[in-house]
């Protein structure tokens, strides 16, 4: 059933995203030609369009993520979705997967159109050099590529957690005791949840404070400032970063799981459609 739900969810959202992506890429191609020319007025118009479409890309990606859950599940369309013979968890999963998919695509399209538009301004060799320098730096300091993967995983987990926090806030906002002001309640819940998430994370990291302090104090002498970190110090920094990233990853995954089950539980046991 998840496959079927995804099919319709992607259909419903691609109507908005595909034209936007095409428009952005087309304007980026136009920009790549006009930027080299001396047609100042045309250049101005194209740049304006490009900036507007970039803004639209970010806004649409975030707004649709919220709106697909709110309108399709908690407003009138919910009468159809919640009478389908599917489990509530499958409904939530279909929204989450689609939101992640479009966010990844929006990032790729955003980056690609930036590169296309700035083709004449960016030195492609320069980018390649920067990448090879970064790889060299990792190798010299014996930093495993797994650390980079770990950092990306933390980013992904944080995004998933953010999406589920939006869903949970909307689900809480429709509970009978809050439902007179659904949107306002949801926003309030989201803000409170964000603060709580930060506080708990800070507490979770507090165990690492002594090692950070030690690192900071010893790394602050003249030698380190003038010549960069010594190999011993570098490996210490890498170890600290790795530990912190692992804590962040586990924390975000645990939160995401809790929020997923919380949302599903509310939709199953405390649904309150208008």
């Amino acid at each position: 059933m998840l496959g079927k739900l995804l099919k319709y969810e992607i259909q419903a959202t691609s109507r908005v995203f595909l034209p936007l992506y095409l428009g952005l890429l087309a304007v980026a191609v136009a920009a790549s030609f006009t930027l080299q020319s001396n047609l100042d007025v045309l250049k101005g118009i194209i740049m304006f369009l490009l900036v507007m479409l970039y803004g639209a890309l970010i806004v649409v990606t975030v707004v649709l993520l919220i709106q697909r859950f709110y309108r399709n599940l908690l407003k009138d369309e919910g009468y159809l979705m919640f009478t389908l013979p599917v489990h509530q968890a499958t409904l939530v999963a279909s929204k989450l997967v689609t939101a992640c998919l479009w966010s990844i695509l929006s990032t790729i399209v955003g980056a690609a159109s930036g590169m296309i538009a700035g083709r004449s301004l960016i030195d492609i060799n320069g980018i390649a050099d920067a990448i090879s320098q970064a790889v060299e730096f990792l190798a010299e300091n014996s930093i495993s590529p797994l650390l980079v993967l770990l950092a990306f995983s933390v980013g992904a987990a944080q995004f998933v957690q953010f999406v589920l926090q939006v869903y949970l806030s909307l689900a809480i906002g429709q509970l009978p005791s809050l439902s007179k002001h659904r949107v306002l309640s949801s926003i309030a819940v989201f803000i409170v949840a964000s603060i709580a998430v930060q506080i708990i994370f800070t507490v979770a990291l507090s165990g690492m404070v002594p090692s950070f302090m030690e690192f900071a104090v010893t790394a602050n002498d003249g030698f380190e400032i003038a010549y960069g970190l010594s190999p011993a110090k570098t490996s210490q920094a890498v170890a600290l970063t790795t530990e912190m990233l692992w804590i962040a990853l586990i924390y975000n995954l645990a939160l995401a799981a809790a929020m997923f089950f919380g949302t599903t539980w509310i939709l199953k046991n405390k649904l309150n459609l208008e």
Partner: protein
Amino acid sequence: MFILECSNITKNYGACKALDSVNLQLEKGKIVGLLGPNGSGKTTLLKLANGLLSPTSGSISIAGGSPGVHSKKIVAYLPERTYLNEWMKVKDIVAFFADFYANFSREKAIDMLQALGLPQNAKLSSLSKGNKEKVQLILVMAREAELYLLDEPIGGVDPAARDYIINTIIRNYSASATILLSTHLIQDVERIFDSVVFLNKGKIALQGPVDDIREEKGCSIDELFREVFKC
């Protein structure tokens, strides 16, 4: 086993009691009218049976289980509001139902759409309110469900379509299925009811087989309704 059973079900909206300790049992193979004035709790009862609301207290069961994936397979529900999205065409929503409900008959749906002159290529957003209601009713009646929960199926459509819809309901439903149909337009549908439930202010005011009630009270259900709920 009853196809629908409510045990002491109560639903409050804040201080307002929409349903107050309602006990109701529906047997298989009956067409039951759920009658009552506006705000008597008809819609609330049907939403509870579909799990779209959760009861304040008491319980509701469909074919022996609480509302869930299994009950949604065997219940065909027509809500009182439009749930059609604005981006699909008529044929897309037919495909959607065929995809999710194993007991949905695409042929039946297409026949009924043609009979009511609803073009399959029309966008749902372009349909009038009455035509949207017709599409929704067709989608529901094209399912071979065990329990049909119909909330005001004839409220917003013209009298000609009303007759067609009532005939469609009778024609499409098999002898083992149950229909619970809420309405305040009693005269038009009275003839199809086996029994009726009168709801008033969240409580059951009267319930029983139509023939018995007619005999006992010496009047039609419509006349009785006007009598009971006289303002």
